[in-house]
């Protein structure tokens, strides 16, 4: 059947994707020219963007190891993006081969790529779903197959909530997810903020504008606003801090100044 000319297209790889831009920042080649163009534009305002991403990855790695050390073996990573290296399942399964990881992303290309990467790994899977509709995630057969919601889960919302606008009520989504988790579960979260960026705000705003232009707005939130996502969680030491300061393996002073942009934290349900 011929596709009517008036039907809207629903996938368009000529539009930059934040997950492929993220891959580019991390030196990967899982990206297209449109993604690289947008990423380079953002880097013109904030040359240290890759360092933020790298610090983000490093934090995630430490947090996953922390969770495994605390006895958690189930991971729900929403907004997992393009799997490059140092992915949650790699880190978690290196620490505990039985660890189970459920990735969730709404970018069909990221999902397809994740499927290719995870092929053959029966303890890790990817689900195409949206953080804004938590019930679709929680009730999906994939999640129910891999994750036992009666046991503690580490919920990873790493570098994703700053892509959810207030109009879509990210707080409600986070609350809904928390309510589905068993006691002793953890929330691992990072979020962009103007706090800590080693640049005058107008430069950082230039980068934010790039995301606005690609219709994937980056929502910068204050520390207090980010802290509200942890309502119902007890903060794990040292609380909500710049990424390099969360349980560092090496002296934070050695880190690149950009790594201190935004906040990271881990909370635990009672």
């Amino acid at each position, binding site marked *: 059947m011929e596709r009517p000319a008036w039907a*809207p297209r629903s996938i368009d790889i000529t539009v930059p994707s934040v997950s492929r831009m993220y891959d580019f920042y991390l030196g990967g080649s899982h990206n297209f020219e449109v993604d690289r163009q947008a990423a380079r534009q953002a880097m013109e305002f904030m040359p240290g963007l890759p360092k933020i991403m790298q610090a983000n990855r*490093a934090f995630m*790695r430490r947090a996953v190891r922390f969770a495994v050390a605390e006895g958690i073996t189930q991971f729900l990573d929403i907004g997992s993006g393009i799997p490059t290296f140092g992915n949650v399942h790699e880190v978690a399964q290196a620490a505990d081969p039985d660890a189970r990881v459920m990735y969730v992303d709404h970018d069909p290309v990221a999902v397809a790529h994740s499927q290719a990467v995870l092929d053959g790994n029966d303890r890790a899977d990817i689900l195409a779903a949206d953080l804004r509709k938590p019930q679709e995630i929680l009730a999906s057969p994939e999640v129910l197959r891999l994750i036992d919601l009666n046991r503690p889960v580490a919920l990873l919302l790493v570098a994703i909530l700053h892509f959810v606008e207030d109009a879509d009520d990210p707080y409600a989504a986070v609350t809904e997810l928390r309510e589905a988790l068993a006691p002793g579960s953890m929330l691992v979260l990072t979020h962009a903020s103007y706090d800590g960026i080693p640049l005058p705000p107008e430069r950082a705003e230039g980068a934010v504008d790039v995301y606005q232009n690609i219709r994937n707005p980056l929502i910068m939130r204050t520390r207090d606003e980010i802290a509200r996502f942890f309502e119902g969680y007890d903060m794990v030491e040292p609380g909500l801090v710049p990424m390099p300061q969360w349980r560092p*393996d090496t002296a934070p002073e050695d880190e690149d100044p950009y790594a201190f942009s935004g906040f990271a934290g881990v909370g635990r349900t009672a």
Partner: protein
Amino acid sequence: MSAEPDGPEDRLRRFATIWSRAVYPVTSTSSTRPEFEERLLPLARRLSEALRARSFDADAGRTAGAALVEAHCTDPEALSRTLDCVDAYLVLYCGGDGDREDLRARSARLQHAMAAGFARALRERTLAEQEAIAQAALEAQGVVAQALHATEARFRAVFEGAAIGIGIADLEGNVLQVNGALRRMFGLSEQGLRGRNVRDWVHPDDAPQTWRLYDELVSGEREHYHLEKAFHRPDGTVLWTNLTVSLLRDPDGEPQYQLALMEDTTERRLLNLRLRYEATHDALTGLPNRTFFFERLEKALGAGEGQRFGLCYLDLDGFKTVNDSLGHAAGDRLLVEVADRLQACATAPGEMVARLGGDEFVALTTGSDTERTVDELAARIMNALLAPISVDGRELTVRGSIGIVEGPAGERSAAEVLRSADITMYRAKSAGGNRFELADPEADARAITRHGLTTALPTALDRGEFFIEYQPLVHLGDGSVRGAEALVRWLHPQHGVLSPDRFIPLAEHTGLIVPLGRWVLEQSVRQAREWRDRHGGEALGPLRINVNLSPCQLTHPGLVQDTVDILERTGVAPEALCLEVTESALIGADDDLLKPLRRLAEMGVDIALDDFGTGYSNLANLRRLPVSVLKLDRSFTQSMQQFPADPVDLKIVEGIVSLAHSLDLAVTVEGVETGAQAEQLRILGCDTAQGWYYARPGPPDRLHELALVDATG
């Protein structure tokens, strides 16, 4: 691993540390720097060994270069810093005591190999990742396309299967796609519709705003509009639709297409038209009916200054006779023919003919010159009725009476105008029919009062607005009160006390006379009973009561039974009651009509012939009637008020009295106003009298007093 200070192992580790410190800042790894150094240490060891091996092999360089890429040092700067580091420190820290020249040459070759290994690995990694992401994009598109296909198939099914017509056109009006329902509505194929332009569908019945709304929509000023629109079908018929057109915008908000949803309302519209026609036309004649006529009349009456109207209200004379004698089917055919002729009389603009019901028709003319045109219209109608109408082989002569109302618009309501026309028509009819009369406000007012009384009559009885006055009947011989005539009055809330001649004919006409008459009879008989109880009257016999019977009551089947019931209920002897019947009511009376009177007479009720001498009485007939009293009309006694009385009148009265007495009838005279009159009548032999000379009609107590005077005097 512990190493001897400044031993080969310690020196190797120091090289790895320097190397990792140089490269770590430009890597993307999520490892820590110490972890990264641990990854570089084996590479450093292989480089160190290759540097000092007996036979040189640059392979270690290629491996180390490739390993950098694997450790996520994909930034070219990582290679540059690595080569700087190797160049400066490899020979220094790992060269041992070998030949410097030779070591440097080997180092250089290792660097070349590292660059090549790095480049190859990076190229392979890049290609692999590009391949992977392209593959993923392709797959994702496949998945999305499949999902889209499924939704699209659903939408297509909805689109095609929808009962409502759906069409999509671009903003220039070119039709891009239409669904089955729409094709069926238009009676056209997809090809017949696709490529057509919306602007071609102009129709004479388009509402004035149709194309303005369209222009606003395609220019993006309007999101949608809704209206009723007609379209030409290829077979020449008209398609009526309920049309909703919406503007479709692209994700950037730019107008892209127009979407039309249409519902076929042709049949509903036809049905509505038919219903409207049926609601506004007379089924028999096809003429506009009362509803339609009122609409038009109201419009005419609401017209602007200088506009006038003229109305002819036609009622056929004697139509009831046609219906009664030839049957309703013949009557209907007559009406149809009349309707056709009337229709032909009112063909000018502003003229119309309608049937109000039965044999009543109206013709309306409007304009500024209706004073003239309405006369002409009435004349045309009278003229059109002249030729006999052939029904069932009979030539029927049809005549009509017309009431004409003419006047300026804006003064009267439609109901007022029609009432005036109705009254005027009746005037024409009472004047003999077959004529037209022009409305006259005074005649209207009189008729309107009559009309008002007629409508007020039924409730008047319930509200107790009637009362009875009694006029004594005096024995001429001794002047004693022998009884009284009961005379009904109506105390009308607006018009005051009304005498019987104002309302009895109306009561006759409406049939109310039967309950009213019964009420009068009952009240009067009760009164007679009361007199008897109070007065005794043993010496002179009971006081009698005279009650009038109207012609209508005479024919009412309940007359005898009602009378008997009342007499029994009140315990009054039939002999105390006299029923007065007018002479005219009994003219030509057959036995059926006389039967009830005869039965009453047999029971002992007196029957008086009222107003005797006013009709053309067949004197011979008097024998046949169950009558015991003659009431001489006042016209015979009027001349006796003067002195001397007219001798001819005296002779007549004398003759009548003589005749009556010979038939064993008593004679009562009315209208006695003077003593001379009374004396004269006594001499002539009359038995009883009534009139102002004795007493005017009055309340029952007054009679009681008079009777008491007699008894005591």
